[in-house]
């Protein structure tokens, strides 16, 4: 009986343990799943690499890591490290020393403190030992996605760029620094920045208001109205960001389409080389916006200052990654096919031009104008003199023709390379070669020698035939001057 009771107790205990374990299993997997979200010294480095940065450590093997960002066109070192407890990821950059803190203008301290109101989470502090301002952003270690990290680093650089007049003491003047007048940007319509709700400016460039144009949610009609009233669709804000970038980063397909329809250039790049397409991918990954931009002529092959294309950014998006990648790759393939076709046409046109130019080459041998065995008449001598004079001029003209010929050969070479391997970045080389060639042609045909020769050869017009090349240049995206 006692043994049966023991067995019952054991079963009861086992049952309770089992139920507890079942409960535990609901917790443990959740923790196990989240564990990779928390970065360690080793995974932080990999995380940065995967985002396209090249973390440097100097002689150390672990953090802090140094990455490079572009601020107002210049590289700046940014330190990424973990807190001692590894519960925070800290990103900061130490700004140049300002010397004696006494000489810091009040407008600078107030300006940077005011910037904290809008720039957060990045925020300025002052290091009294180093006598320098520091821009820092602290992330809770866990749940940090590549997209949000990348966005925050971009925003961090953006804050640095637009506040240079405050933290760079070489730009201080007796009057308040220029930046102090603009650090507190007007609140956009629809933007939720109030004393009650706190700052929401955690992305770039979606918060810029241009000439009163807010590209945020629900602003499409207002944007349309302002563009109709004459606002430049390619208006550029701080760091060369555009309204299209703002709308793209806020996943506003209607506004994006309105801007494109009004002539906004989807291929403008900010100072870091980032395009509206790149913004749309890493900010929200909105398929509708990305599709609108691609259909609107966004070049998927453009590169930022890190050499990354829009396709590189796809790895940073969480939403509909495969579909977006498919869309961009298809656009890239179409782009390459289009480039290949264009290159073939240009190559053929260069061939035609070469033929026309060869026919117009002017060096000829003097004609036999005196019959053998006959005494030359005065007229013969005169004709001979004229012929010699013309030949001499034609010979001199060779000096002008040779450079044109050289340019023909160069243009033919680069167009041939583009046709065989249609990389869009080579288009610029072909365009440059055609421009050089046309420039040489213009120099030749406008020269005094050429005009004199044309007069001498009346009835035999000398044509270079550069019209096709000018058409090719238009196809290549830029008409000659």
């Amino acid at each position, binding site marked *: 009986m006692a043994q049966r009771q*023991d067995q019952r*107790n054991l079963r009861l*205990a086992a049952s309770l343990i089992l139920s*507890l374990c079942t409960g535990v299993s609901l917790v443990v997997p959740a923790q196990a799943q989240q564990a990779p979200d928390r970065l360690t010294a080793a995974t932080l480095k990999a995380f940065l690499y995967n985002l396209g940065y090249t973390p440097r450590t100097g002689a150390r093997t672990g953090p802090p890591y140094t990455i490079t960002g572009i601020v107002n066109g210049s590289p700046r070192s940014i330190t990424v490290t973990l807190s001692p407890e590894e519960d925070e990821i800290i990103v900061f950059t130490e700004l140049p020393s300002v010397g004696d803190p006494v000489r810091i203008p009040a407008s600078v301290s107030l300006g940077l403190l005011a910037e904290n109101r809008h720039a957060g*989470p990045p925020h300025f502090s002052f290091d009294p030992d180093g006598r320098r301002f520091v821009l820092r952003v602290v992330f809770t270690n866990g749940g940090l996605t590549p997209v949000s990290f990348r966005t925050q680093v971009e925003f961090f650089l953006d804050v640095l760029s637009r506040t240079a007049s405050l933290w760079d003491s070489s730009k201080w003047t007796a009057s308040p620094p220029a930046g102090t007048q603009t650090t507190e940007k007007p609140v956009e319509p629809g933007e939720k920045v109030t004393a009650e709700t706190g700052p929401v400016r955690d992305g770039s460039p979606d918060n810029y208001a241009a000439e009163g144009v807010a590209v945020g949610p629900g602003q499409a009609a207002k944007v349309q109205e302002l563009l109709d009233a004459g606002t430049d669709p390619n208006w550029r804000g701080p760091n060369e960001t555009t309204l299209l970038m703002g709308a793209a980063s806020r996943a506003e397909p209607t506004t994006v389409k309105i801007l494109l329809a009004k002539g906004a250039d989807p291929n403008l790049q900010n100072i870091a080389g980032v395009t509206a397409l790149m913004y749309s991918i890493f900010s929200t990954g909105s398929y509708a916006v990305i599709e609108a931009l691609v259909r609107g002529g966004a070049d998927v092959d453009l590169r930022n200052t890190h050499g990354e294309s829009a396709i590189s950014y796809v790895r940073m998006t969480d939403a509909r990654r495969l579909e977006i990648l498919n869309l961009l790759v298809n656009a890239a393939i179409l782009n390459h096919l289009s480039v290949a076709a264009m290159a073939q046409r240009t190559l053929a046109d260069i061939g035609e031009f070469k033929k026309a130019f060869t026919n117009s080459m002017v060096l000829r041998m003097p004609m036999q104008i005196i019959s053998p065995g006959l005494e030359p008449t005065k007229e013969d001598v005169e004709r001979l003199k004229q012929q010699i004079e013309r030949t001499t001029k034609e010979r001199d003209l060779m000096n002008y023709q040779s450079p044109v010929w050289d340019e023909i050969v160069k243009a033919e070479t680069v167009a041939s390379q583009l046709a065989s391997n249609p990389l869009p970045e080579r288009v610029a080389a072909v365009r440059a070669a055609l421009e050089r060639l046309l420039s040489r042609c213009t120099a030749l045909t406008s020269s005094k020698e050429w005009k004199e020769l044309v007069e001498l050869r009346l009835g035999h017009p000398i044509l270079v035939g550069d019209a096709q090349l000018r058409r090719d240049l238009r196809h290549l995206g830029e008409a000659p001057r």
Partner: protein
Amino acid sequence: MEVSRKAFLVLLGAVWATPTLAQNEPPRGMRLTQDTIKTFLENLGYTPDVPSTPDHPYIIYVKANAASFPVGVTLNPTQNVLWLFATSPQLDGEGLTGELALRLLQANDTSGPAYFSYSREEKRIGLWIAFTNGGITPGYFRTQLEQFSRLLGQISAIWTSRK
């Protein structure tokens, strides 16, 4: 009887272990929503004022230097960041001086992740902490809230002064 004692000990061990495994805290990396913030704060022992609209923050009250400071807790629109913030009453006169502004910037050097700001338009000092939504644990949140409270206490003279 021997088996029964063993069963009891096993059960006791399991029950002893239970609080650490089944406590009512969100697991690490839990992503908060506007709705779960309330539960999260209540589990930490606060009774938040519920906002009238989802756009407004929850308000909790933090004690420092025998004063009680309202502190807002809210998510940003993309819900990537959980903000903890407090704003001072409006300062009178010209507002903050350059010297005090520099001192607050200096305080920011060691106060992280909390930091001070200033609104020249509203003449208010702000104190902020941004948490990455998804990595917040109750322990970390509580530690930062204590730091927040200490900072409020340290500048309470300026904070509550209307000069």
